[in-house]
């Protein structure tokens, strides 16, 4: 049992701040992750759906980790 670190406290405030009424959950994010990653790499504009993917990624470390991995694969295969 140990107190939260300053970084964890900051993470809590940040997570609360980023909170929206409607958010994509992990499956919704993953359904669009391929398209999102391709567009990011191509520098193409994102629509509202993809903006929600970006928002989910800012709050979900797991989806975010998977996005980084997918980006790496696509970049290597380019």
């Amino acid at each position, binding site marked *: 049992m140990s*107190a939260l670190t300053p970084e964890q406290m900051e993470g*809590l405030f940040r997570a*609360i701040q980023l909170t929206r009424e409607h958010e994509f959950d992990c499956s919704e994010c*993953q359904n669009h992750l*391929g398209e999102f*990653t391709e567009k990011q790499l191509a520098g193409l504009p994102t629509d509202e759906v993809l903006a929600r993917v970006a928002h989910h990624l800012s709050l979900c470390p797991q989806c975010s980790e*998977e996005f980084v991995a997918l980006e*790496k694969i696509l970049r290597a*295969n380019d």
Partner: protein
Amino acid sequence: MTMMVENEINWPEALRASGRESSAAVDALRGILLNGLRIVLRERSDVGEAQLEDFTQEALLRVLERLDQFAGRSKFTTWAHAIAVNTAFTELRRKRWQDVSLDALTADGHRLQELMVMPDDPGNDDEERAQVLEVLRQAVAEKLSDKQRVLILSVLRGIPFDQIVQLSGTTRNSAYKLFHDARRALKHHLTTAGLTSEVIRTVFAL
């Protein structure tokens, strides 16, 4: 298959037509997925060639199962790589966090408000910060369920949703939803107390 450029293949069709696991299309996709996983996992000393092959096979089966869900919004191979990455990373996270004690986590989570201390920052007005922290502590104590407190603590300590799922017998999605509901309740409480995102950002220099 080898004569065709990857982009020109109608993957769902080729995979459906194959009907058996050893077809050219399935073999080609297996090679593509294995190559992708190798790119992201080659630097990890805990992942050997045999495990890469296992992840690939598991991912391949998932892709074949979900062919109907491919909506064509990205290249097929991108969609398949995303499934492979998810398959591999979920399993690796499970292994990494398998020894986390649910009992210790639960005990700490139930007392989350007591674990919340002021980030040390002499550059800011401590009185105002203490006030914000007190309101947040109160919200955590009164507005959240035990389950939500445990979840928030887990997230803050870096324990992945997948693992919380293993511990609490729920899905990654419902864990995320519970986390979302908790954040909404906290945000609502803070806003009602006059502490908007703007105020918090200023007070804590976020």
